[in-house]
Structures are given as structure tokens and as C-alpha cells.
């Protein structure tokens, strides 16, 4: 279990303020945010590589705020892996064991067992400069795991990899987390990556936690406009848009609906009077492989993600008139 209580840290104009977070034991937590949001700084504060100005860090129930990095029981895989270039793969992985003076035989046995599990046993005598991105990633992971940490901190662990390797490494990370019952914090700016591994997630911006919860909650019930936009929701409207909601709302607010929840009908199709019915015309569309992104203009500009079948059924051309249906129960309002 990892818990931070009102953690604060600042460097230059950047600061983390009152950062409180709890990651359950055995959980796979993804910290999302744009570059410069403070994700890496947060991990470095957990590792003890940066001295925090206030607050406390608990790992496995133990207050580790003032402990050295080596005494915290964490495994850390930094961005770009930071493999030691003067050591072979084997010596990289065994580095921590040798630093704590394990015997040579013990080091070899542990390194071989782990590398077999990660499928990199054939690389042991290679130079790290000669490894591919995926091999480097696995080596860095093995170097952290061989120390048998309870907590694993991963900083953008797959961002430098191609799509195929990224998917295989993500599923490996998930398997490893389950096998070793690790509590993982995985930092990323990539939503797909988060969906492939996370139990829970948080969104960070400019050193401030915006929202913590399940990915579904972040996706469908964003706490604010930043979260909604980060989760790629483009349909965000003001409270003056005159849209019907499933429950009444006081004060200033904004309302959003996810593009995949927008229903598009031909003008002659039957509509339910309880829905928000908006006459729109097709501006442009683009095929993204898995779905078609269609942009409509009208009283409100609407973006819809439609299946290929749904889009084909509309037989749409730019300029054609349609009805955009926004179901109130699919809409979410947040205060501004």
C-alpha cells in the first residue's frame, strides 16, 4: 500500500501542493497527465530522490518520508530505463544484489530465474547499447524486480516503444504485477496504456491532482473540464446551451457527453421527446480504423464517434442534414 498525506514539493516555478493519494495493496494505479504535469517529480518524491517540503509518505504502512531511497523497499524504472551503459545485461540486473553484497552464486541464480521469466535469458551477456527498446525495458524491469520490492514505480515505461511492443510489454507488466502481488504506480500520458493495465487512475495537471478514481469514472464523470478534455471528450457545453439533464443542477456548470455516446439519426427517423434533439449538418468525417469521427455543426457543434456500420447506414456526405441525439442520462455536468 502507498499513501501520501499532503505532500508538498517545489522546484523553480513548479510545485506539488497538498498531494494526498492512496493506492491499495496489490493495486495497479496509473498516474495520467500531460508532459510537465509533475508525474515524474511525484515518483521521485515517493522514491526519496527529492526531499519533500511537507507531508508524509507511507509505504506498506511504514512512514518512509525521511528514509533513504534504498531503505524504502521500492523498485523504480525511470523513463528511458537508465540502464548502466558500462555493465552487461547480467551485471545490470544483478547490480542491486551485488550492492547489498549477496554472494555471487545467489546473484546468478536470482538473475537467471527472473530473466527466464521475462524471456530475456538469452541476452545476459549482451551490452545494453545493443538491445532493442523492448529488451531494454525488460532488462530495466528485471533490475528493479530482482530486489523483490513490494512497490514498483514505473515512469513512462513503454512510451519509447512501438505499438506492438507496447502492447506486449503492458500485458507483461500486468502479469508480473499479479504474479508478484506488487503495488504498482505507473506514470503515463497515454490513455490506451492506462486502459490496458490500470485498476484505478488519477489525472494530474500543474502539480495538482485533478481527479482520482476508476477509468470509467474519469471517462464518464470527469470532475472538471481539464479531466474531460484529457479523456478526449470534445463535446463540452456551457450551462446556457439549454440542454436537458437527468437531474437538476444549481450554480454555474458545464455539461459534457462523450463522442461515442452521441446518437446520429437521419431527419426522418423516430426520436424520443425526452432526449436533447439537435438538428445538425455534417462538416467533415475521418476514418480512424476502429471508428469514424464525424464533426457536425448546428446550434451546438457536436463530435460523434460512430461505428463503421452506423456511419455507412447514414450514407453521409459533408453538408447533409442529420439529427444529433444527446440522451440526458449519458450526459454529465461539472461545476466551473
Amino acid at each position: 500500500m502507498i499513501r501520501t498525506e499532503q505532500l508538498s514539493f517545489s522546484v523553480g516555478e513548479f510545485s506539488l501542493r497538498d498531494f494526498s493519494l492512496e493506492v491499495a495493496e496489490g493495486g495497479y494505479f496509473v498516474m495520467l497527465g500531460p508532459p510537465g504535469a509533475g508525474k515524474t517529480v511525484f515518483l521521485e518524491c515517493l522514491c526519496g530522490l527529492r526531499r519533500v517540503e511537507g507531508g508524509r509518505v507511507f509505504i506498506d504502512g511504514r512512514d518512509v518520508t525521511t528514509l533513504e531511497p534504498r531503505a524504502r523497499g521500492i523498485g523504480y524504472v525511470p523513463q528511458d530505463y537508465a540502464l548502466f551503459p558500462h555493465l552487461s545485461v547480467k551485471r545490470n540486473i544483478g547490480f542491486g544484489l551485488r550492492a547489498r553484497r549477496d554472494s555471487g552464486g545467489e546473484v546468478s541464480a536470482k538473475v537467471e530465474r527472473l530473466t527466464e521469466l521475462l524471456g530475456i535469458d538469452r541476452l545476459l551477456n549482451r551490452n545494453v547499447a545493443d538491445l532493442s527498446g523492448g529488451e531494454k525495458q525488460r532488462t530495466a524491469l528485471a533490475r528493479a524486480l530482482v530486489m523483490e520490492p513490494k512497490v514498483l514505480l514505473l515512469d513512462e515505461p513503454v512510451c519509447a516503444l512501438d505499438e506492438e511492443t507496447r502492447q506486449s510489454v503492458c500485458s507483461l507488466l500486468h502479469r508480473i504485477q499479479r504474479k508478484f502481488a506488487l503495488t504498482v504506480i505507473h506514470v503515463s500520458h497515454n490513455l490506451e496504456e492506462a486502459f490496458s493495465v490500470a485498476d484505478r487512475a488519477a489525472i494530474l495537471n500543474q502539480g495538482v491532482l485533478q481527479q482520482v478514481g476508476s477509468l470509467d469514472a474519469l471517462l464518464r464523470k470527469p470532475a472538471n473540464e481539464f479531466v474531460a478534455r484529457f479523456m478526449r471528450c470534445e463535446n463540452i457545453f456551457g450551462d446556457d446551451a439549454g440542454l436537458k439533464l437527468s437531474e437538476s443542477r444549481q450554480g454555474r456548470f458545464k455539461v459534457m457527453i462523450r463522442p461515442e455516446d452521441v446518437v446520429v439519426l437521419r431527419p426522418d427517423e423516430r426520436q424520443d421527446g425526452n432526449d436533447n434533439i439537435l438538428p445538425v449538418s455534417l462538416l467533415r468525417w475521418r476514418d480512424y480504423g476502429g471508428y469514424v469521427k464525424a464533426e457536425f455543426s448546428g446550434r451546438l457543434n457536436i463530435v460523434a464517434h460512430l461505428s463503421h456500420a452506423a456511419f455507412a447506414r447514414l450514407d453521409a456526405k459533408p453538408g447533409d442534414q442529420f439529427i444529433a441525439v444527446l440522451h440526458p442520462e449519458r450526459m454529465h455536468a461539472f461545476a466551473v
Partner: protein
Amino acid sequence: MAAASHSPWRGWRDFLFAAGGLFFVAVFVGFVILLIIADAFYIDKKAVLTVLKAGFIRHALWMSVWTSFAATFIALLFAVPVGYSLSRYRFPGRVLVDAIIELPIVFPPLVAGLTLLVFFSQTSLGKWIQDDLGIEFVFQRKGIILCQFLVSASFAIRSAKTAFDEVDRRFEDVALTLGCTRWSAFRRVSLPLALNGIIAGGILTWARAFGLFGPLLIFVGSFRGRTEVLSTTIFLEQSVGNIEVALALAMLMIVVAVIALTTIHLVGGKTQVKL
């Protein structure tokens, strides 16, 4: 087709570019070799025999070699912690400290000799070190090493700092999370990664110390069999008109320098492979 794809020259422009660079290499190396050949032709057999047989020259050679290596060793002892600290830590007055460390590189070596002489013979602290502590430098062998150290240590420090600058801090950070203390992260990660740069600095330092002449004449003099080193012997021999002997000594210095530099390069290379 295969040969063409492996050729570094893909066209006449690439060829001209490479030829331009190599032309300057050839001019510089050729000029140095010409100078050495000119010296070699000027030396006669008698001068060579004098250099090979004279006891005072063997002594000066030995003094040159061991004092320059001792000064280099001490310079490196300072260079590693100073270079690391300047590379890693930010503190008030750091820019001034940087400038002071580089000062010996820019001021004339003669000034170093004069400054040392004034410090040890005119200031109360210098006199206390010499007279009360009994650590004598002026006109003593220890003074040779101190003089060489003062004039050449800046090269070692500058090179070490640059070498540590090039070692990504994250390597140390990762080592800290893998059970290392600060010292052990430095010893196991930063030092091996900076070693090539430190060795390069050591070579510059040694070259500067080995060839030092002016400040030594001022600070320790050139007492035959005591504080005489090869560079001061050359000066003394040419000042009494023994140009052939002076040149033969210069050739000897060149040979020693080539042997030392080659050995350092080889040992440095092996050290890196072992790590």
C-alpha cells in the same frame, strides 16, 4: 553495389568534405614530424653519447618522470572530488569558484613560480609552513611537485567536471533505489562512467607537468643532481652553447612522452574494458 553502399563517400561533395578535414590533419601532423626530423638531423653522435652516459641527465630524467607522475596523481586526487562537486552541487559563489579553478590555465606559468616563491618566502603562513612545520618547498624537490601541481591541476579538474557532467544523474538515482549509498553509487556508477574523461584530464595534466620549465627555475632553481629536471637541463645546456646536447635532450623528452602517453592510453583503455 554493396561496395558503394559501404563507402563513406557517396559523391564528390562528400569526398571534398572529407579531404578538406584530412588536409588539415596532414598539415598539422606533418609539421610536427618535420620539426622532430629537423632536430634529429642536427644532433651528432657525441651529443647522443653525452645524453646517454651523463649521470646528471639520468638524474634529471628520473626527476622529470617521477615528479610529473606524482603531481598528476595528486592533481587527480583533487580533480575527482572537486570535479564531481562542481558538476553535481549548486552553491553560492559557484561561478567565482569555477573562475579561480581555471585561473592557473590562463595565467603565465612563470607567475605561478613567482607567486609560490613570494608565498613561502614572504608571508607569515608560508614561513610557518616552511620553518615551523619543517615542510620545505623553496629550492627543494617537493617544490617541483607543488609547482607542477599548481600549474597543471586545473586541467584535471576541468576534465573531471566535464566527464561527470556527461554522466546522467539518473544513473545514480537508480543506483540509490537499488540499495546503494551515495558513496557506493558514485564508486559503482558515476566514477566508471567518467573514467575516460578523467584519464584524458590526467594525460593533459601529466603533459603540462612533464614539460614545465619557467616556474621551476624561479621556485626551485636548477641544482644539478637535486632539483634539475629535463626541461631545465635543456635550458641550461642551450644557454652555455651546447645546442646539440639540448636537442638530444629534447628528443629524449619526446621519446619519454610518446612512451608515457601510449602507456596511459593502453592502461586507460584496459581499465574501461575491465569495468
